[in-house]
């Protein structure tokens, strides 16, 4: 048992940063494929909902340089993770503006694009639906008449004959009776639009289908193994024949998990066997032709007693899932079992729906349903606190979920300290102190919001790792987790170094992640990697260490229990002997007088898979263990509103998260900082469409994200460490949590400043100005 850490808990430099600052880091579009490279472009539907009557590709095929054109009839399979509802190319009908109906392969991207514009498709327009409340009505146009025949994960419950792809029910206690005991009740509707991840690197996929049947896919991916699984199944490729390789990802945020456009590259590659086909999304396609965060309409009713204790909650979440909900259904489910937000509430009725709408595909985006539901929840809580005459911070302290409490699914809350997080952020913004604005025409306000999130996964997501050595005892750590910028590779190296007992700079993480050589990792999502991959790497390193100690113990005729590895050397606490790892980790050790040898190449292996997640009752959402754990946190915002223009200037965002154990504290802070700005930016973002579902702002010109000039004057981060029972040294995830509650924290602060509440995102200077003006009238 280490008294002092050598690597873990230290702010060691990132393993990937030298490559990235010199421009030598390779991303998916950087790899050179030579003269045989073809390019693909997609033909996309101009209608939100239509039957495909006829596709004529003849003119496209005549364009010199075009090698193939494929359509839906060439690929009868469907693809999906939790709900297999998406055709490879739309064959009988299109379900959103941008739904791909054909793919063109040519010797250049330019020629492929010209030819794509010559593909003639005859459509019969159908009525379309864009609002989940409209789509859920019995007479709404049906997007998936065959919903009943789709393969679906056992824990997802679609309603065939409707547009409901998932309905999660939570029933706990007796909500109806509880209302009568409430001294105050708040009932509100909250809405938010679709927004996009906006990774600076758009989606890129290159696929080659060899005549031998071996298929290789290079792509910017968070989930090479999951993509292999889904694409293999949908295109009928044996798993072992499909190889997915992913280099550094230039921003994922959930949009590069699962399969979006990668399957098209593979499908097109089949038509031009032996040639790699590159498919890359333009920024415009990235906005509306990959995946987006779902829209939401939330009905929230919450009540407390006279002392401010939460008694009852009734929520209905209607997610606008878009045209295909193969990932969205799990988001609705996660929103369902976590529907209360980070609170202890004894009586809960929750219904969470994922609803098909004729919009871009809703899928995983940082927070996975949590930012969407916290938008309404954290404002409703503020409103309830106000109604009962309680300070919002005090209200959260009283009601926030605490270790050991029984939460909405009947699970016992694991070890967390949300109160500590609340206290830290309240202190950081001088909560309770009314501070003056910077000018007479500005109004200043403070607000806070708390959050929770569990990794939303199937019950059996596995991680594995291998630790191998080079002759000089430098270490190769093999993982399947991806470096998206969050620092996964660095954390893997730190954990391996610590568990082995070698210096941090001896450790290299093998990259790119390649399903042919890398050990299995379910997906780099859900903020699960530090915990799950971390456990696997720790196990693999400990396995290697055990083999080394046994070898040297035998060599020294000592007990392995008396040996250790420190700083790359085996040491004996008993005899005080020392032996460098160099050489022995590959070559073994010679017996006395060279009468034979012992040992050999050391290979450590490890895996981690949670074993304790149980199913949930489909009628009540109750079960022994719904999720693996929760990460909790708090954010407080201090801002000013310019009453003459409605513009918001954020003075400070203070965040505190309980990460269990910060493997690299500075990297945790960089997640907090990035998340605060991402959360702030998302508050003002929205994808806009016209009445026919056509995108109005699919570019940076009119979809604005925060620039360097927009950031808060100050971002403050605090780390709380309440160890996670089964995390490596107690560590749990942070990557998504950092932006979950920023929007409602801002809304609460704006209310504090100007007394106006906003139930609908996005916010904007215009909206705020007009609301203030209306209030005056």
């Amino acid at each position: 048992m280490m008294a002092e850490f050598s690597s873990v808990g230290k702010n060691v430099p990132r393993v990937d940063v030298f490559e990235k600052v010199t421009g030598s880091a390779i991303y998916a579009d950087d790899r050179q494929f030579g003269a045989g490279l073809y390019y693909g472009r997609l033909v996309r539907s101009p209608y939100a909902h239509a039957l495909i009557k006829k596709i004529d590709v003849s003119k496209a095929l005549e364009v010199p340089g075009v090698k193939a054109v494929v359509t839906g009839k060439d690929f009868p399979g469907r693809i999906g993770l939790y709900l297999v509802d998406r055709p490879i190319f739309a064959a009988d009908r299109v379900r959103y503006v941008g739904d791909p109906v054909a793919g063109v392969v040519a010797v250049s991207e330019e020629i492929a694009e010209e030819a794509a514009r010559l593909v003639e498709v005859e459509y019969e327009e159908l009525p379309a639906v864009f609002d989940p409340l409209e789509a859920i009505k019995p007479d709404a146009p049906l997007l998936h008449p065959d919903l009943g025949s789709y393969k679906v994960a056992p824990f997802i419950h679609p309603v065939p004959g409707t547009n409901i792809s998932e309905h999660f029910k939570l029933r706990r206690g007796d909500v109806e009776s509880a209302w009568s005991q409430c001294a105050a009740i708040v009932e509100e509707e909250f809405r938010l639009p679709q927004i996009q991840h906006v990774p600076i690197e758009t989606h890129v996929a290159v696929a080659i289908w060899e005549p031998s049947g071996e298929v290789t896919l290079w792509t910017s991916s968070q989930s090479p193994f999951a993509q292999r699984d889904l694409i293999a199944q949908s295109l009928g490729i044996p798993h072992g024949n499909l190889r997915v390789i992913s280099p550094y990802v230039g921003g994922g945020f959930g949009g590069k998990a699962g399969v979006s456009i990668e399957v098209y590259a593979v499908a097109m590659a089949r038509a031009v066997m032996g040639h790699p086909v590159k498919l890359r999304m333009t920024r415009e396609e990235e906005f509306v032709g990959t995946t987006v965060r779902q829209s939401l309409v939330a009905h929230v009713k919450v009540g407390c007693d006279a002392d401010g204790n939460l008694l009852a909650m009734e929520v209905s979440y209607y997610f606008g899932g878009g045209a295909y909900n193969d990932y969205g259904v799990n988001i609705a489910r996660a929103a369902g079992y976590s529907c209360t937000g980070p609170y202890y509430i004894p009586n809960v009725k929750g219904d969470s729906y994922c609803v098909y709408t004729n919009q871009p595909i809703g899928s995983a985006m940082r927070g996975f349903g949590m930012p969407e539901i916290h938008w309404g929840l954290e404002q409703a809580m503020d409103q309830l606190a106000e109604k009962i005459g309680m300070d919002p911070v005090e209200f959260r302290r009283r009601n926030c979920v605490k270790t050991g409490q029984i939460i909405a699914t009947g699970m016992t809350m694991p070890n967390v300290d949300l109160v500590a997080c609340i206290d830290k952020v309240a202190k950081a913004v001088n909560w309770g102190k009314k501070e003056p604005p910077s000018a007479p025409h500005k109004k200043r306000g403070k607000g806070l919001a708390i959050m929770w999130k569990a990794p939303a996964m199937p019950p059996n997501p596995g991680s594995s790792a291998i630790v191998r050595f080079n002759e000089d005892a430098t270490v190769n750590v093999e993982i399947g987790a991806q470096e998206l910028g969050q620092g996964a590779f660095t954390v893997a190296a730190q954990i391996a170094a610590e568990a082995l007992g070698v210096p941090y700079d001896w450790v290299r993480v093998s990259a790119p992640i390649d399903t042919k050589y890398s050990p299995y990792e379910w997906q780099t999502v859900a903020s699960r990697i530090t915990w799950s991959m971390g456990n696997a790497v720790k196990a693999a390193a400990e396995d290697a260490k055990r083999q080394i100690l046994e070898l040297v113990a035998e060599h020294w005729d000592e007990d392995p229990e008396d040996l250790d590895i420190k700083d790359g050397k085996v040491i004996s606490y008993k005899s005080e002997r020392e032996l460098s790892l160099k050489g022995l980790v590959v070559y073994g050790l010679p017996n006395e007088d060279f009468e034979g040898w012992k040992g050999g190449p050391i290979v450590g292996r490890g895996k981690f898979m949670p074993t304790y997640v149980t199913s949930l009752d489909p009628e009540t959402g109750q079960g022994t263990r719904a999720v693996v754990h929760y990460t909790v946190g708090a954010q407080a915002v201090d801002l000013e509103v310019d009453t003459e223009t409605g513009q918001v200037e954020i003075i400070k965002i203070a965040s505190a998260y309980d990460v269990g154990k910060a493997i690299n504290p500075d990297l945790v802070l960089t997640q907090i900082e990035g998340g605060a700005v991402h959360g702030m930016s998302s508050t003002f973002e929205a994808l806009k469409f016209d009445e026919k579902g056509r995108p109005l702002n699919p570019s940076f010109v009119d979809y604005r994200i925060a620039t360097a000039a927009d950031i808060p004057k100050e971002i403050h981060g605090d780390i709380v460490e309440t160890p996670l029972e089964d995390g490596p040294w107690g560590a749990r995830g942070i990557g998504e949590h950092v932006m979950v509650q920023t929007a409602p924290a801002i809304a609460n602060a704006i209310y504090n400043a100007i007394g106006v509440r906003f139930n609908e995102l996005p916010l904007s200077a215009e909206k705020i100005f007009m609301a203030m003006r209306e209030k005056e009238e």
Partner: protein
Amino acid sequence: MLARPGLPRFDYVRAETADEVVRLLQERGEAARPFMGGTDLFVRMRDGVIHPQVVVDVKYLPGIRDVVYDAQAGLTVGAAVTMNEVARHPDVVAHYPLLAEAANSVASYQLRNRATLGGNLCNASPAADTAPATLVLEGRIVLYGPDGEREVPATEFFLGPGKTARGPAEIVTAIRYPLPPKGAAGRYLKLGRNKVGDLSIVGVAVFGFPDETAPSGYRFRIGLASVAPVPLRATAAEEILAEEPPGEETFVKAAEEAMNEASPIDDVRASAAYRKAMVRALTLRGLRAVWEQLA
């Protein structure tokens, strides 16, 4: 349709003389397009809005990249002078700081290294950031065409969104700004969705100077962007400021009048109602700021 991945095909020709350009435009008409910075042209071509067969690079015409200040005649800015060059040129900064401020508000530093003053005015977006300043500084657009050189006052140059008084075979070679009146001060205020660097939702240039011929002792000129089919002068507001004594009450009245002179539309960036309100807010702020410099 979404924008294409790259630019469509075209020929690139680098012009050496203005006559060469004029000839080409006469021969090819819409199929030929002069360009300087390209920051607007390339975006439109990718978006499929226009597709010229020939693009004519006029950045190398003699004098078109020069900034010349004459203490008697005023400032001449070559059409291909970039925004950054305008913003930091010592003569512009010293004598036409309003123009420098306006040029510096465009987009990003990278784009300002390519975007040109002439291009910004020629594209005649109602949101063109340098238009209000050019209007209030009483700039004149210098055109060269089949009939030689002519000047068009900025107030007569903008005819509609994307439409100017430039003839089909003419190019803009320079913008001339007369000497500003003695003691003048000006500000360009811009409201975007980001703090800095966005297209304007509303842009207001306020320019004021002492003038004993005005009953109030001062004349103000107000230029508005993004609130009408063209960038325009708020002349009725200007009249109020010429007549009535300067101060908060008059400024409020003028700002209200400027608001009434604006005829914005609803679009994806903002509503007409908000734009109108912001004309008032920014004009008022601009008047206060300029007055502080004048007094």
